[in-house]
């Protein structure tokens, strides 16, 4: 028996390796074709992510080797950094208002476009256009012109005798111009909503109207519940994007977060710490905290989703 067992073991092992090697032979060409992407992913994405985690525990100015400081960077963030607090305030305000407004706007336009009008593809493309242009430098500059003291908005208001402030350079309003800019780029959630609306069976509406339900009631009782998976998806994507928002504030304030830090987005503050003041260690810590924040928000959304997201099954 013992002899048999001893004999059997190597044979098992041998057959195991041959199974592995056969599998490897089958998959090797696949991995070979994957290689260019894999090298890029490991070298340019995973590598820097790991090193930024290490750097977040160091003091690093690029010129001298990193200096291990333990949790000091994280400690400073919460105890001794006025700009961090300001950037959190700005970013949370932005996320809190821009995401729901943008989703509501996108849904409204999607419903409007879903009524089977003529030339739908054209309208769809037109409404999507701002999203293609939105993150660009040109639009950020255009925004400056529209919301400046003598810009388009105030010229319009002056028709009604209202003397508007300089929206873009007044700390009370500057963040709101960026929220409006973000809402204006409602294109990609709108397209997704539109696809979701197409999935809702028409016979449900017919049955509801036979029972005497009006349009408004149909929206609340049929459209919205059946659309919740799409709302859920859009909300998560837009929240993540909003937390990372950078370009508009960077261009409009030329990277300063002015006036009075009122547009100092978290990502902008992080960028300044890294590339204006060369505190790479601290900037890495900020980046990891942002990752943590986004992860928390996403996890929270998933945990609550079973109470309000209705999957059609």
């Amino acid at each position, binding site marked *: 028996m013992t002899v048999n067992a001893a004999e059997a073991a190597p044979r098992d092992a041998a057959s195991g390796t041959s199974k592995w090697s056969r599998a490897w032979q089958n998959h090797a060409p696949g991995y070979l074709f994957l290689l260019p992407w894999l090298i890029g992913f490991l070298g340019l994405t995973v590598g820097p992510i790991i090193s930024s985690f290490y750097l977040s525990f160091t003091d690093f*100015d*690029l*010129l*001298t080797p990193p200096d291990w400081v333990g949790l000091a960077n994280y400690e400073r963030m919460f105890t001794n950094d006025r*700009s961090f607090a300001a950037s959190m305030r700005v970013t949370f305000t932005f996320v809190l208002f821009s995401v729901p407004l943008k989703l509501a706007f996108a849904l409204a336009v999607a419903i409007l476009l879903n009524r089977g009008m003529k030339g739908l593809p054209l309208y769809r493309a037109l409404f999507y256009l701002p999203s293609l242009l939105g993150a660009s430098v040109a639009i950020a500059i255009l925004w*400056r012109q529209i919301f*400046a*003291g003598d810009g388009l908005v105030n010229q319009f208001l002056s028709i009604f005798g209202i003397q508007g*402030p*300089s929206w*873009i*350079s*007044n*700390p009370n309003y500057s963040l709101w111009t960026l929220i409006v800019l973000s809402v204006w780029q409602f294109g990609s959630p709108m397209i997704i909503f539109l696809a979701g609306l197409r999935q809702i069976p028409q016979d449900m509406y017919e049955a509801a109207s036979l029972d005497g339900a009006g349009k408004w009631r149909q929206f609340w009782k049929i459209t919205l519940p059946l659309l919740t998976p799409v709302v859920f998806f859009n909300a998560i994507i837009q929240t993540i994007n909003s937390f990372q928002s950078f370009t508009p504030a960077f261009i*409009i*304030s*030329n*990277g*300063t977060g*002015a*006036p*009075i*830090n009122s547009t100092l987005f978290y990502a902008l503050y992080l960028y*300044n710490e*890294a*590339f*204006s*003041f*060369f505190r790479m260690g601290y900037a890495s810590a900020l980046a990891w905290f942002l990752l943590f924040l986004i992860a928390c928000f996403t996890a929270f959304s998933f945990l609550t989703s079973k109470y309000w997201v209705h999957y059609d099954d």
Partner: protein
Amino acid sequence: MTIRLGRRQFLMGTSALLAAGAAGINPAWAQSALRLIFWGGQARADRTYAVTDMYEAAGNPPIEGEFLSWNDYWPKLATQTAGGTAPDIIQMDYRFIVEYASRNAIAPLDEFMGSELNLGEFDQDQLEGGKVDGKLYGISLGANSVAMLVNATAFEEIGEAVPDNSWTYADIERLGEAFKAAGNGMAAMSDGSGSEPMLDNWLRQRGKALYTAEGQLGFTAEDAIEWFTMWNGFRDKGYIVSAEDQALDNGAPEASMVAMKKAALMPSNSNQLVIHQTVNDDTLTITSYPRIEAGVGGGHYRKPSMFFSVGGSSADKAAAAAFINYFVTDLEAGKALGVERGIPCNAAVREAITPTLDEQSQIALNFVANLGDLLGPLPPSPPNAAGEIDTSLLRVLSQEVAFGGRSAEDAGQYFVDEATAILNRAAS
């Protein structure tokens, strides 16, 4: 970011370098070609490359140039320095030279004096400006001074004379009333309360300074309070632009208060007259910053606008020094460069180029050459945290005061407390 190499050249070059590196050999040409990096725009690049082409045509080693915007330049240079691949010739700023020198990221040049570097006709104060701890680390590429940008056309329209170098802060009130009376929506001046050079100039006239040689603050909360209070007075009376207007200025020339016709005067630099004129249809000129009182001078200084330094890891420092020498002393090179980087520091070059300059450049050259009693000593180069104190403290506080969110007393005290804390944190 613009790289002068073509993509194909770059690919071929890098793959050849990779191959050479893998084989552990250094090709002979890699030692003779020198790499040059600088910040600036296309106009500066065109002038610079004209000189490198001339240099190569004269039988010298080729220079591979690369230029970036100011914002992209410093991260790139720091990254390359960290990776040990810094270029041979590095354009350096007064603000960073101490940091780079103290970390041996740039090399001392004293050993090349008299041989590769032939700087007999070089201005002594500009040579001193490139020294760190007594050793020469940078060769000044031109001298600048702070200057008040003036919309000369606007002054002509309201019948006032353009202020000359004797004007004072009291004149801001006089001119402020004149521009208000004209009622064309233009204030006499932009809001200078958040301008670091203007605060520095004002402090120097009071016998103080922004920073001491030891890297500490050179003024007190009382000074800062008086500063903010003075500008509050100007703003309340409408002599300067409103807080909302000033906040539109994000540093781009076309967003300046003069370009937007909000103000007739604004703090700037002598070398920037040329660029500001390109985005203004009115005729511009420059004059000095105002004096705190008639006859008080010493606020201005001739600042080395930028340096060329030699990379600490350069394989051929002597060849790099020889190119820098050509760049600052050759007459033809000087004509190609003009005053784009500031007024040349070599007397012979200055003389040779004067007749070739356009009107704005002549104004700038004459202004820097004739500062007279306005001229004070060159201040020590600022501490590392100076940039942070400027952008995240002075500018933010000046806006908070201007919008009424903070009193001048509060802001002055806060400025000094917080700046001291930032300096201490950076030093530890």
